């Protein structure tokens, strides 16, 4: 019994340590964002006074003058568009890979894997030049296209892993009943596959939401600049002070909803992140 008590204490310490380390930056950002301007440099982990001025300044001036509203809208629309398109394309491909026998299947899987390892910086220069030539520079599609490319491998692998678990006899049953392959796919399989598609969608959304390299390389204005890039260009009251409080407030606004979402769907995310990893 005494050994059990010691073990219990050790596990508690380990678990507590992980929890504290994971939460420190989040609490720190919330704390910084709530500090009044004259207390930002007080070096305290938690604020002694609370002020919402930093949040007010983010949204002041409406969409035209706020440094934050337009990038926030851009981030949401670009990440959502990427997610919808990527999941559509990836579902088609994953269905074919999981369900049909065809030459080139292994090549597509190997190619997707290769793209997952591809260094994005190697495409930034050519894309910068090409996008300026064809008018995609500083537009939504200019970011959605590279995000699509780099999130498709992840989406395809997650969806193939999920699709392989689906009871496909149901599809055959539908075809026996006279459904075309496409009807069997859309009416029978899509509803069954929805949980896997949702998981893949979360991962793709987080990928697009997180990107910084393409966002600062392929945009030049608030027309399409997303939040991570906008944060790097935030300016303070004068050009000599870093706007710590506003950055912290903006960071909290884009972080807390995602964390709540991630925690709510944590089982799905874990299964998606590890899909296929154990089949070796």
């Amino acid at each position: 019994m005494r050994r059990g008590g010691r073990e219990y204490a050790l596990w508690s310490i380990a678990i507590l340590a992980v929890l504290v380390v994971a939460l420190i930056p989040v609490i720190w950002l919330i704390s910084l964002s709530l500090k009044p301007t004259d207390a930002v440099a007080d070096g305290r982990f938690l604020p002694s006074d609370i002020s919402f001025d930093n949040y007010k300044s983010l949204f002041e001036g409406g969409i035209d003058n706020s440094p934050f509203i337009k990038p926030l809208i851009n981030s949401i629309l670009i990440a959502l568009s990427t997610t919808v398109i990527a999941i559509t394309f990836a579902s088609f491909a994953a269905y074919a890979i999981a369900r049909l026998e065809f030459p080139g299947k292994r090549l597509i899987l190997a190619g997707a894997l290769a793209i997952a390892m591809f260094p994005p910086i190697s495409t930034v220069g050519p894309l910068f030049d090409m996008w300026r030539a064809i008018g995609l520079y500083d537009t939504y599609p200019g970011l959605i296209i590279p995000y699509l490319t780099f999130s498709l491998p992840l989406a395809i692998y997650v969806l193939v892993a999920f699709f392989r678990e689906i009871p496909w006899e149901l599809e055959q049953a539908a075809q026996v009943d006279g459904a075309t392959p496409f009807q069997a796919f859309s009416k029978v399989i899509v509803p069954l596959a929805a949980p896997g598609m949702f998981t893949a969608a979360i991962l793709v959304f987080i990928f697009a939401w997180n990107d910084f390299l393409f966002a600062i390389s392929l945009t030049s204005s608030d027309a399409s600049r997303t939040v991570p890039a906008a944060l790097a260009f935030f300016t303070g009251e004068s050009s000599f002070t870093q706007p710590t409080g506003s950055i912290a407030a903006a960071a909290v606004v884009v972080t807390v909803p995602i964390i709540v979402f991630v925690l709510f769907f944590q089982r799905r995310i874990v299964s998606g992140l590890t899909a296929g990893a154990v089949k070796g």
Partner: protein
Amino acid sequence: MEASAQRHPAASERTRSEHRLAWLLCAPAVIAMLAVTAYPIGYAIVLSLQRIDLRFPDQSGFVGLDNYGAVLSSDLWWTDIFNTVFVMVTSVAIELVLGMAIALVMHRAIFGRGVVRTAVLIPYGIITVVAAFAWQFAFAPETGFVNHLPLIAEDMDWFGGRFSSFAVIIMAEVWKTTPFMALLLLAGLVTIDSQLYEAAKVDGASAWQRFTRITLPLMKPAILVALLFRTLDAFRVFDTIFIMTRGAQDTESVSILGFNQLISRLNLGLGSAVSVLIFLCVLAIAFLYVKGLGTRVEEGRPGS
């Protein structure tokens, strides 16, 4: 059914239409993946063989391998390679140890597994740039709380020196990406038959012996897959360094060098040579791992 499909002409027509359907379904994804990788890397090679500086457009022309010569003979490239490899090796090594510890906690804990899983997903959900700002503010002498902690000099200027900057950069990278490592390792851990541990226990093996003789060998494929994806990801390190130092104090990574040449200086020729060299480095790293893994890599999965 399969056997009769080979013989029957109507069934073979069906096979062919199945192939067509499969290719049709894969086409959008394949085109979207190639459009922004194969074509641009080809274009980058073409650009890298020319003098193209958008600030001096009239001086453009074919220069052969001159850009590569210029990059490879510059001290900056080799400094940046050292920085990138240093951050990559250090952060991945720390992540492997921490990730394994967290995976073991999640796997073996008698309670609270859900809490740990919840906790490790927090860094995953945070934008890298945001995490970099959070740690930068925490360590900055003006705003931070770190210098007020015991054992740390109150006037420690973390971003004033090269290796103290690296310490903060590596810490931020480790914080952000250890969860991914831990989850991949946990996925490998759960496949190990628990009877092996029981048998070893009966034979008198210590906990450490059970870990080194059973867990590690059986997890080699999972560890290599996780290391492969994290190593390649760490080699591309950009966001954290850009936010924290912008490459000041000799902390520039190769990705930042490429960005500076391409986007800040608009020198597409030189920048493309850097891009192609980074691509070759990634190929070399992937090749080494794939040799170590054998064919198992195809069963692995892309990271995020």
